[in-house]
């Protein structure tokens, strides 16, 4: 004498649950508030991180993805590391020339150093402009392109000629209302020294909403005269082709170790990084955010689940007589269990759907007020729904089994 299939109650259970949710709107909402918070924070954070990911990936894959950099120090995570980096030898012009001479897989090596300072023209003056020192090879790897004019030549680099290329924002600030091309040939002052504008660069675009076009590029030897030679250079290397990137990195490492007279057991006292290094670093960072998110969400869900369990226990008490009636007309243990389990899951999913809606609404609002793109992440919806179904089952099973175990006679006598 086996009872009828338990799936009989599914549609019925969902309808009962929706009816009960509707009958107790405020209570239902308060019950699932934990789920709403948990799910909306998953959706919100995932959406934002996906948006940032899209932006970051765009930056790192835009152009020159095969270019790698040699620096004195890599990215440091602690004060100790920073102190250790300070004892490393600076990268110098001689290092650059050594690499240029010895390396066979390099197409170009650019020396660069960055600072910031004031730029003036006539009565116009701007502060905090990026001042970028570059060797002439920069012309070969610059992916931005010229709006007008030209790059500087090898002799201009070597002889530290006072020539400059400027960004669009700089042009706009110094020559307001004029065509950027009209800046060519004018004499501007950088840190008080006169420079002739020989080129205007195309826009470098914006990153996270910030324009990147307020800068001046000058020959590296000039930069060193202005800022001193004590600051370390960094090198950007363009390999001969995409297929020799690894070879070029290895060669750069080997030559730098020779140059610095390192023994086989010594660690590198310089840092080589390509764009994947930054992507790895970024991914580690977002993984950290996700880990923290999982913790917060798990806590919200446990609290939410306990509330659901309590409300379901109350519901079972309220509806004891109903359970008695259902048992009297032939509902089995499994059918009652199933009914209340479906109800708990429906309640939990109801909260989940509200959370998804709220999370996306918040993400869309953020996207409309900030430059972050809005990315609809399907897997986060699926993950959220699976999670709230799980919460409903885990925290609904105990109240449901209480209902299913009720003695029909006692339940029918219950007021």
């Amino acid at each position: 004498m086996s009872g009828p299939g338990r799936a009989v109650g599914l549609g019925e259970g969902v309808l009962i649950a929706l009816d009960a949710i509707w009958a107790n709107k405020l209570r239902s909402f308060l019950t699932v508030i934990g789920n709403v918070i948990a799910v909306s924070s998953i959706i919100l954070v995932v959406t934002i991180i996906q948006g940032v990911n899209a932006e970051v990936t765009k930056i790192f894959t835009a152009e020159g993805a095969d270019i790698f950099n040699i620096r004195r120090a890599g990215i440091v995570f602690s004060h100790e590391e920073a102190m250790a980096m300070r004892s490393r030898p600076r990268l110098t012009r001689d290092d650059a020339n050594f690499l240029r001479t010895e390396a066979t897989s390099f197409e170009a090596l650019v020396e660069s150093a960055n600072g910031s300072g004031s730029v003036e023209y006539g009565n116009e003056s701007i502060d905090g402009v990026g001042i970028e020192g570059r060797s002439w090879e920069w012309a070969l790897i610059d992916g931005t392109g010229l709006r007008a004019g030209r790059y500087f030549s090898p002799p201009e680099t070597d002889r530290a000629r006072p020539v400059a290329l400027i960004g669009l924002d700089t042009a706009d600030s110094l020559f307001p209302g004029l065509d950027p091309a009209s800046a060519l040939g004018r004499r501007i002052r950088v840190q008080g020294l006169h420079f002739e504008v020989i080129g205007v660069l195309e826009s470098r675009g914006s990153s996270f909403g910030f324009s990147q076009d307020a800068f001046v590029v000058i020959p590296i030897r000039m930069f060193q005269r202005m800022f001193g030679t004590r600051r370390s250079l960094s090198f950007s290397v363009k390999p001969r082709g995409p297929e020799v990137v690894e070879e070029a990195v290895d060669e750069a490492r080997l030559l730098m170790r020779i140059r610095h007279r390192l023994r086989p057991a010594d660690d590198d006292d310089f840092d080589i990084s390509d764009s994947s290094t930054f992507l790895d670093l970024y991914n580690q960072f977002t993984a950290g955010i996700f880990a923290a998110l999982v913790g917060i969400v798990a806590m919200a869900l446990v609290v939410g689940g306990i509330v659901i369990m309590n409300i379901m226990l109350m519901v079972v008490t309220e509806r004891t007589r109903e359970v008695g009636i259902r048992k009297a007309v032939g509902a089995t243990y499994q059918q009652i269990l199933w009914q209340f389990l479906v109800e708990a899951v429906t309640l939990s999913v109801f909260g989940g759907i509200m959370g998804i809606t709220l999370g996306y609404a918040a993400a869309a609002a953020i996207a409309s007020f900030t430059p972050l793109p809005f990315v609809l992440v399907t897997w986060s919806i699926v993950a959220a729904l699976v999670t709230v179904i799980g919460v409903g089952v885990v925290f609904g099973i105990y109240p449901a089994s209480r209902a299913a175990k009720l003695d029909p006679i006692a339940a029918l006598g219950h007021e």
Partner: protein
Amino acid sequence: MNDRPPETPADDSVIKIRGLKKIYDMGRVKVEALAGVDLDIAQNEFIAIMGPSGSGKSTLMNLLGCLDTPTEGTYRLRGTEVSRLDDNELATVRNREIGFVFQTFNLLPRATSLHNVELPLIYAGMSSRERKKKALHALNIVGLGDRADHRPNELSGGQRQRVAIARALVNDPAILLADEPTGNLDSKTSQEVMQLFIRLHDEGQTVILVTHEPGIALHAHRVVTFLDGLIVRDEPQTAKRLDAEAVPG
């Protein structure tokens, strides 16, 4: 096959009870609610079970309705021994063989008449379309086909009880088990509900009525009276019932 006392050769019993005992263990005290009851109820009988409260009639009703199992004794319902079944098996028996009618109607308050009547069929695993057809048919039998989408609070007491009777009938049960079915109704409505029971009986339904009101018991063919967990009287009542039927209304 068994060692029970011989019965009439052509055994048309729907219910056959032998030595039925129910003892409630209240910690130190044991209460014997049924002290060994033998009872046969034949197909299409209309029987009233009477007795004061505490006489054991409610306990018997719970056992007859397969809501509970006896401490001792046997209970064959339409040839199946049901006294040793587990809870789920009892649920299935209730679903297929028993139609309950309660004093307080016991309808689901938020469900329509149709849905209330459908309930046993849902647990029987019947398809939605078949369910609706059978439930509407049962509502038509009790004269409430036009109230299918009304909720209990939109119905009078008598109508509610008729919906409950439709629910009890919908699975074509072996017995219709009514516990004080008119206890919450005024006298006129009570008469209407009793006329419905009489009609159902005339159409072949076996009806068991548990009541403490002699006036209600008058409608039955046979009256079984309980006292202190035992049957103290069991007699037919044909003549009186005709009188009762003569009552107008």
